[in-house]
């Protein structure tokens, strides 16, 4: 049984959002809240940090392409949040138009947002502002198009990829780090 937050909590959220709240509905006991894109990051921060809501877990982040449904704007960014402490769940959505498919990144709030947003970019071509490295995750860099868009044909073939040049490895650490020597090595006198 999915448990949506109590109506009082949803009212509190609606009050906080004010005009940024676009729609609110419930289906099969699941609460959905649609917010304006400019309030996306702030809403998530509020949901995460408010002690009564306490949505600490970003369960999932994905996109729905509404093109075949005739939806406007074209994309809808969907996040599922869960509160381990309060045991409630919410679905948060925001519309994303195709011509300026850009939303603020959730990476300051959750670490898994990094990969989830890379996947959303990979599959749908939605950009996230402030993402540290928005590149493809499941597909390869030379892939043309974004396959989960409705207008991407099911059996489309991709061109062959030329052999890549070997890149010099780049350091992944911003400053030299010295981790302490593993204590187990001391027994060998290292």
């Amino acid at each position, binding site marked *: 049984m999915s448990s949506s937050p109590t109506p009082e909590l949803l009212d509190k959220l609606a009050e906080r959002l004010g005009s940024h709240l676009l729609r609110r509905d419930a289906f099969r006991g699941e609460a959905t809240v649609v917010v304006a894109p400019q309030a996306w990051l702030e809403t998530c921060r509020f949901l995460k940090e408010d002690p009564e809501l306490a949505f600490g877990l970003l369960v999932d982040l994905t996109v729905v392409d509404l093109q075949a449904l005739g939806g406007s704007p074209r994309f809808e960014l969907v996040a599922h949040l869960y509160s381990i402490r309060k045991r409630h769940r919410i679905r948060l959505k925001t519309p994303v138009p195709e011509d300026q498919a850009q939303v603020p990144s959730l990476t300051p709030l959750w670490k898994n947002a990094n990969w989830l947003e890379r996947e959303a970019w990979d599959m749908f071509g939605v950009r996230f502002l402030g993402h540290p490295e928005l590149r493809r995750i499941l597909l390869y860099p030379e892939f043309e198009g974004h396959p*989960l868009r409705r207008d991407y044909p099911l059996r489309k073939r991709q061109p062959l990829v030329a052999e890549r040049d070997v890149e010099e490895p780049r350091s992944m650490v911003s400053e030299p780090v010295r981790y302490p020597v593993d204590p187990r090595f001391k027994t060998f006198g290292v």
Partner: protein
Amino acid sequence: MKPVPHEPPRDHMFLNMGPSHPAMHGIIQIHLELDGETIVGSQVEIGYLHRGFEKTCENRTYTQVIPYTDRLNYVSPLINEVGFCLAVEKLFGLNVTRRCQYIRVLMSEISRITDHLTCIGASAMELGAVSAFLYLIKARETLYDLIEEVSGARVMPNYIRVGGLKSDLPEGFEERTRLAMGEVRSVLDETHRLLTRNRIFVDRLSGLGVISAEDAVSHGFTGPCLRSTGIGYDVRQAEPYLVYDRLDFDVPVGETGDNYDRYLVRMEEMKQSLRIIEQCLAQMPQGPYQVDLDGREMTPSEVIEGMKAKPPLQPIRQARIRLSPDLEGTEKRSVQDVVADDKTVVFPPKEDTYGNIEGLMQHFKLVMYGHGIRPPRGEVYQAVEGGNGELGFYLVSDGTDLPYRLRCRGPCFHLMSGLSTMIEGETVADVVPTFGSINMIGGELDR
């Protein structure tokens, strides 16, 4: 970790672990930056097993999706099927019979044990304990035998249906399950004796691959990996689905979030799963019994003739018949207690499909292209507790027979996003047990 372009310190070495490396189950690549043997930076590359699961499913009917879900987490496929079917049933607002719910829980728990056995067996083998691996895989094989008996296949069962099951449990299943449970229990005891206090094994696991509870939540960890950090979140208890609220089981938690805790949590979870299975067997309601027509088996044609009589002969309606072996498990007695009473969703028993026009039409309407199961418009998210954590299906239906959008939330994706945090500061050799304890399943990670 974010790559910052700058001159690497001269003594740093770069190493590619994978994508084809014996310890990288499935295919995954880890770029390592090493200072001596210590990992100072790492980057995980995934996607080598991407096969477009979500795109494929958006072009398949709901029934056709079920076998694809087997290929997500292929060591616990029944949980995937349960998750998907529950999501579709939630769209419909459909309830399945009590017996069916118990069987689904039973099969999920059998799958969970196979998942954990594989994880512990494989990671023990990578640390050199090949005999422990063999014992665990032997135990898994007894469970695969049970699954095969029920569904006809060991690994890809395709057993759960929207609104029910492919068929009821076979005769004598209960006793055989009890025997198998005894066997699994003795293997678990043996594994405890072999590994739990084994100096080599403990040294390679304890204190390594540590992740704090905060980091684990921030990375979206669920399942044994989250519980090893001390947070007791389990979908089965937090949001009970099916009949988990009627069953008594404990959710084990760890303390430090290291590899050894993950090992212990998995070992204990298997014991709890055994408890659940035994309770299921005890509580499972028996369906009404079939009346045999003088104990004589009838041929399908005799039954069909009997059905055509006006009025249909009542004893024949309930008679046991033996269809062709290909259709075994699809007769009325095998399905009547385990499928929901909703003709728009469940397949008719084969006697009806071949015996009367209503059955034929019902079958046709569900199978033919352009007909099929048609949930109402709407969207649902259904989470179940998979082998590695919360497995969620987010379904958007536009009222047609194809899912408009099917999103699979696999636990592995989130676990892998936290791998870098877990291995940095440790040595190259420690990547193997840490990676093993995450139990990454490529089919689910890359979808």
